């Protein structure tokens, strides 16, 4: 089997309407590959191919639950980055206020 380890360009992955539809479906709930395939006219292997592309672009992960393979939307990375941004936004505001105070005190002394 060929490995598909290298990550794909997310825009390539998003360029296809079927793949965007898959992401939309997964945004509501995790679904098995079979359940996903029911939403499409195309063959199951064709759906699998789209899933593979979404997986290597990092949008979804695939988990084996029982006999079924489930597709799950990846939002963890998003939440993590957003937390950092919120944290540092407040952090810098506080620090800049401190710098301003420090500079003003310095000129008063002179």
């Amino acid at each position: 089997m060929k490995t598909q380890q290298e990550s794909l360009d997310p825009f390539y992955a998003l360029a296809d309407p079927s793949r965007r539809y898959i992401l939309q479906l997964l945004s509501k709930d995790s679904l098995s590959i079979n359940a996903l395939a029911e939403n499409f006219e195309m063959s199951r292997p064709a759906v699998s191919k789209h899933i593979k592309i979404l997986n290597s672009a990092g949008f979804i992960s695939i988990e084996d639950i029982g006999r079924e393979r489930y597709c799950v939307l990846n939002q963890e990375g998003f939440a993590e980055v957003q937390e950092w941004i919120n944290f540092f936004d407040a952090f810098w505001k506080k620090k800049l206020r401190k710098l301003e105070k420090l500079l003003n005190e310095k000129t008063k002394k002179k």
Partner: protein
Amino acid sequence: MQRDIRHQWFFNHSPETVWKYLTDPDLIAQWLMENDFKPVVGHKFQFITKPKVKVKFDGVVYCEVLEVKPYTKLSYSWKGGSKGQITLDSIVIWTLTARDGGTDLVLEHKGFKGMKNYLAYFFMNIGWKAKVMKRFSLLIGS
């Protein structure tokens, strides 16, 4: 939706004075964090502060000086995380502009890695309009 951080402040001080507070390790420590900064491109340094468990931050920011233009521009990489695992990978840019006898200081904290997952979330929330996608691809590509 927020992608990066930008703050602009006006200081009643010359760019030379503000620059000192951005580049002298002792002065930086007085308002920002303990550090071993040097205004030399390629210099690797750290900021040390209290850990913040909530965001999985062990209190050490790993940095490398990327650009030094005296009294005008300073930038460094800004990485951090917990237990040696880097979850924060970003860039801090300071820009100084003289104005009305003082200094406009702009801080940009950006380039947060993990944008791929942003894309998923972003499109999930706004739908699939080609126009928005084009605009966003330009943003991401920049």
